[in-house]
């Protein structure tokens, strides 16, 4: 991977361009991106108040099949399943975005610090904290946090952030350890730059491809986890989510009504598979090791 002839190494900006061109050729990856963007539009529409606003309205039409007025039918208390599914998309994106942004930030910051001061007490402390958090089974940790925070609305978000950052931190830490031994860091040191400036200006930006990959992975994990936690009753408290719809549906199913279950699980499945396609293609396009493999 070290360039033998520096003249053929492309300038910095075109590396991203090259990755994008590589990504564009991956048809399944593009399909994934399209799916994710469509869901994002759906969620934006709810935020802007365009659709999904009548999710909690009750009507006298119980457990109806799909019709022109209720596209995906109604549930046991006459609520429109399509509206609920659409509104739940927004909830899923909110959970995904909040957890992803905060867990990634925390992971990058702490991972970079641990890697940069490798072997110091701060590294040892951070590794210990990561080891401790990784040792507690995740769903139990969420249950414990929910219990300790006395059913706080954001207990689930906090618990996910507290657990998910460790993966990011471990990856960034080992990348920073590898990067700080390279010549460009030595050059920056020789020019008298402060070590903190080196970390922020030179090392962390060079981990951005890993950070992007991790954000996609955390996002999809957060959405899947939200569904399971909401089903268990320790997730979303206000509003509706796919997990809550599935929890509702366990009663409907026994009576032979599948509107809730099919809507929520299909919406979840398509988003997750889209994200998995997107994330796989992104890893291929951004990982320089795999790139050099393709070039051969």
């Amino acid at each position, binding site marked *: 991977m070290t360039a033998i002839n520096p003249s053929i190494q492309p300038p910095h900006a075109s590396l991203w361009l090259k990755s994008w061109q590589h990504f564009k050729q991956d048809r399944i990856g593009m399909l994934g991106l399209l799916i994710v963007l469509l869901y994002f539009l759906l969620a934006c529409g709810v935020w802007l108040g365009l659709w999904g606003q009548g999710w909690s309205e009750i009507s006298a039409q119980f457990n109806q099949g799909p019709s022109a007025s209720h596209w995906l039918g109604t549930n046991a208390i006459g609520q429109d399943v399509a509206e609920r599914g659409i509104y739940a998309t927004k909830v899923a994106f909110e959970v995904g975005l909040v957890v992803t942004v905060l867990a990634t930030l925390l992971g990058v910051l702490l991972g970079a610090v641990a890697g940069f001061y490798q072997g110091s007490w701060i590294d040892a402390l951070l590794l210990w904290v990561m080891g401790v958090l990784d*040792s507690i*089974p995740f769903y*139990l940790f969420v249950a*414990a946090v929910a*219990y300790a925070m006395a059913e706080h609305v954001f207990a689930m978000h906090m618990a996910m952030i507290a657990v998910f950052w460790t993966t990011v931190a471990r990856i960034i830490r080992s990348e920073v350890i590898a990067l700080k031994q390279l010549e460009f860091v030595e050059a920056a040191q020789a020019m008298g730059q402060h070590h903190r400036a080196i970390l922020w200006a030179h090392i962390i930006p060079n981990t951005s491809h890993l950070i992007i990959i991790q954000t996609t992975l955390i996002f999809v994990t957060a959405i899947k986890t939200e*569904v399971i936690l909401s089903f268990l009753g320790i997730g979303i408290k206000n509003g509706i989510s796919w997990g809550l719809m599935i929890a509702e*549906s366990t009663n409907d199913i026994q009576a032979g009504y599948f509107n809730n279950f099919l809507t929520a699980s299909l919406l979840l499945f398509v988003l997750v598979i889209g994200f998995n396609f997107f994330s796989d293609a992104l890893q291929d396009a951004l990982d320089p090791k795999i790139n050099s493999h393709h070039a051969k």
Partner: protein
Amino acid sequence: MNTWLFIGKKLLEGIPLVLGVTLVSFMLMVHFGPDLTYSLLSKNASPEAINEIRSVLGYDQPFWQRYLHYLSELLRFDFGLSMVKDQPVSTMLQEAMPVSLLLMLPGFVLGNLLALVLASKAAQHRGQWQDKTIMAVAVMGMSISFLIVIIGFQLIFSSSYGLNWFPVRGWQVFDAEGHFSWLAYAKYVTVPTLAIVFVSLGYNTRFYRAVLVEELNKDHVTTARAFGHGPGAIQYKYMLKNALVPITTRVLFSIPLVVISGSLLIESYFGIPGIGMVTYDAIVAGDQPVLKAIVGLTAVLFVAVLTGAEILYRWFDPRIALK
């Protein structure tokens, strides 16, 4: 490094982790947890009764003393009575543990073995249609939530809307005389096993394929092929054995995930009285003695398993001792 010294060092390294996980579960469950005084008292309790309960719960003691008390509870495997069922927590756990093991084990083993078979097929035909098909199906399998698989499989196999071959709920694996019945066990364990295999197959296949492909690229495998060894011999003798370290790590790391998280969903949905069901009931009811026991014990167990694994690695790969 001397083997005993190595083992001793690893055991010492596990101590801070054990202290860490117990401290976290203590802080969450006991220290910051809700005040239980009034949920244990009847209405219009006298100040004396309140004080008595508070001292039984240890609220009048300093932080460190209460933490040490929690540690001793874990060591003695004695957590007092459950708040919901009038039963010692340790008895509840002892009764539930074998149920969870019997329930999760077949799916766990099958899920790994099947994945290994599929992954070696994919790795053998790397880049060809067999590989592409297997990996595409794996991604699809990964994208279906565990929850949906459980509900869907119950619908397909156990309900009158589907095949209706298996019981919907429960765990009656003992016959009228109280003997364990393999037939009944097979009836109750099949659908959960299918669900576990289905959910873990995608992740496991991707993992095993990555491990095998990495081994395939190594020089000694090329050499073995040049010497004319058959693909079977190469796969088992030269690749799988070398890949034992990442594979063991993976299997060990997935145990708490499968046993606790998996059984939480499966047992609560199928009404099977294992650890997952006990945990689910405790979460729903806020049963603190049960929760603090399960959180603390599983975390400590996980650290113990990890420490054991690191000692085992030295046996698989003597180079590890040099690092």
